[in-house]
Each structure stands twice: as C-alpha cells, then as structure tokens.
C-alpha cells in the first residue's frame, strides 16, 4: 500500500506545475486514501488530523502547487474553522463536513464502477474482433517534381484561360428573418408537422430560402420546434416542440 504513496523522485520541490500524478487521480482520491490509512470513520472525520495529514502529504508529493489539491486543503481548513465556531443552536447546527462526506461517498462509488470497467475492459481487450487491424498509415506524398519550363507553361495556360471576367451588377436583397419566423409560426399553428419542401415554395429565390432556413434555426434554438432528418439528404421534417407546447 505505502509504496504507491512514495513521492516520485523526479518531482522536485521547485517544479512549477504538476501535469500528471501517478499515485492519485485527484484530491478526493488522496483524501480517501488518508481516511482509509488513518482508519477513521468517514461520517465522523477528525478534520484537524486529516487536514494536517493532507497538507503534509501534498508537500511531500510535490503537489502543493497543483490548484485542485490546494483548493481541497483550503476547504479542509475552512471546515476545521467552522467546527471551532461555538454552536448557538445545537438542533439547527449543520455539520460542516456533510458536503465533503457526500462527495467522498460519491467518489468512492465511482471508484467501484472504475474497478468493474477495468476488469471488463481488460477481458475484452484480450479478444480480437474481425477486421481489427491497426490502421495503415497513408504513404507519404511524393515530393513535387516540376521544372521551371513546366511551371511557366502552366502559368501561360491559366492566363490564356482567364479572359476578361464577366461583370454584372449585384442587387442586394435583404434577408428577412422576422418575416420568415412569422410565416413558419403561422404554418405550424395550422399543422403540427411540415416538411422542408412544403415550407419552401418551388422556384423560391435564394434569399427567401435563406431567410426560411435562418428563421427555422432560430426557432429551433429557442425550442419552439424540432427539426429532424431520417438520413443524410432526406427531406427535413419540422414539428412543433411538444415540451414547449405543453408549457
């Protein structure tokens, strides 16, 4: 047991930032180890003793610069301070350790699941499925072989092809999202479900299609309707959101 707590010799006291901690996966893990090691009751943690141990341990492991451990140390000290305050009303007194205990138990529960997953994962790891081959890395691209003459002739071809550009005037048409939203709302007021192709008229202008699309996304974002597609490129189905309808 104690071997896992041994400080990593590579962690010097000057190390600025600890990225990976091999022994503990977090402050709760360290705290649970201490509780187990000290053999104290989790529902009645002697905060002063555990806090002292915790601080000593993070110092010895060189973790005292990792924010999460420091935060836990601060939390322990605060709980300790709260325990020292005189209790005016014994009945209304809430154990300041309660929240910590809840988190520790929750964490412990999760560790049990981890053990199970680890076991199952290891079993499955030892069996291969069909076609389980490591992916072959793509062969590196051959370096580009090109002579100056080839490059110049290519430039020449491009310049020949590029005749005078076609100039035409662009007429700006404003996108009308509020208008589209009104339209969609009124359609959905009549029908619970509608298809995208029904919503957009045949031969509609791009700005109209765009307005309807943006209006649709806006309504979907605020949860007024649902947009579903059974498979890629299938018709999009728009329906009233049952939840918001009920509300």
């Amino acid at each position, binding site marked *: 047991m104690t071997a896992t707590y041994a400080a990593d010799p590579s962690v010097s006291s000057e190390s600025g930032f600890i990225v990976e901690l091999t022994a503990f996966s977090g402050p709760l893990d360290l705290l649970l180890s201490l509780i187990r090691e000290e053999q104290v*009751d989790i529902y009645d943690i002697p905060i002063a003793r555990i806090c002292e141990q915790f601080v000593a341990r993070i110092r010895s492991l060189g973790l005292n610069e990792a924010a999460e451990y420091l935060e836990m140390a601060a939390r322990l000290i605060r709980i300790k301070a709260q325990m020292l305050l005189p209790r005016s009303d014994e009945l209304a007194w809430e154990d300041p350790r309660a929240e910590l205990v809840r*988190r520790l138990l929750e964490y412990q529960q999760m560790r049990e699941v981890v053990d199970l997953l680890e076991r199952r994962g290891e079993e499955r790891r*030892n069996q*291969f499925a*069909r076609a389980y081959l490591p992916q072959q890395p793509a062969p590196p691209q051959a370096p580009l072989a090109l002579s100056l003459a080839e490059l110049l002739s290519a430039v020449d071809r491009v310049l020949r092809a590029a005749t005078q550009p076609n100039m035409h005037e662009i007429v700006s048409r404003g996108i009308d999202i509020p208008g589209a939203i009104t339209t969609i709302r009124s359609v959905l007021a009549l029908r619970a479900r509608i298809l995208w192709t029904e919503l957009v008229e045949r031969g509609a202008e791009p700005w109209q299609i765009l307005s309807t699309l943006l209006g649709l996304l806006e309504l979907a974002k605020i949860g007024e309707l649902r947009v579903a597609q059974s498979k890629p490129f299938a018709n999009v189905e728009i329906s009233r959101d049952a939840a918001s309808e009920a509300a």
Partner: protein
Amino acid sequence: MTPLAKLLEAALFASARPIATDELASLDTDASPAELQSALDEIREHYDVEGHGVELVELGGGWQILTRAEYTEAIERAQLAARPARLSGAALETLAIIAYRQPISRSEIEEIRGVAVGGVLKTLHERGLIDVVGRAEGLGRPLLYGTTPVFLEHFALRHLEELPRADELAIALRLPPREPVLVAANEASE
C-alpha cells in the same frame, strides 16, 4: 448447422462491428425471433463444443465473433493484430461518471472527480466512447455527454443496464478487511 445458422455465421464473420438482433433479422425476413435466437445458440454451441479458436459473444447491443483470449498473445506477437491501448485511470473515472449520470455536463463531472476533465473528455470523444448528446438548459447551455455503443463494445457489456445499479454499489467506504476496529469504536461511542 441449419441454413439460417450458416447465414448468420457468414454475416457475423463479414462484419467488423457487433450485429444487432434486428439487423440479423433483416438477413432473413422469414425467420422468427425464436428461430434467430436458436440459430445464434447453435453457432455458439458449435464453436464451444467443437472447440473453435473463436467464440460468439453478445455485447454492445448485438452479437460478434471474437477470438478466444488464449490466442491473443500469439496473434499479437505475430503482429497480426494489436490490442487497443488501455484507458488511463482518469479516463476510466470520467467514463464511469458519464455512464451513470448521462446526460451530464463537464462541470458536473468535474464536481464529482474534483479535477478538470477537459483533456480527458477530448480523448474519450476521439476514441468514440462518448458523444455529445445534447445541451443543458441554463447559463451557457453547456454540452451534455453520454456513452456510445462503442463504450459497450469496449467493456463487453450487452447494454448499460448490465452495470450494477447505483444503489447496488457499496455506499459506505470499504475498510481494509483486517481492521474491524472502526465498527467497534462506533458502537462504543454510542
């Protein structure tokens, strides 16, 4: 083997992923669920009784033919296939939380683990074990994560319900078995 069993075997052999029962049913629309099940049993028994190097396993919501564990090392040594890398402890912890609390946001996971999980989530997502399943209501509408079918495959689980229920897990801290002192001390103090 019956023709149906042979058909299923061929399909299972051809597929790299577990085949769900309804997908198996689409191979032969005349076959009833009972017939499919007995054909699957037939394949499994065929492999087990006659002693094949592969076995039929139910996992990830479907069925899959897997090599038997005893041949893994030889296969790996010959570099015909490689075992996937093990997940780190941090990844397993995060995955355990997501499996039980899905859909769950990053901040909720961090609350339980007591450490930041951004990088771990990215790794799990890249390995296809988790996916974004929605967005929470409220401030910032954080992404919500859930496990994927690949998660079930990875841990050879038939479905999520195969994991022990939260109330089946020991809720008290497990103490080292050699030390029953604590209980006695508690009783004494009462």
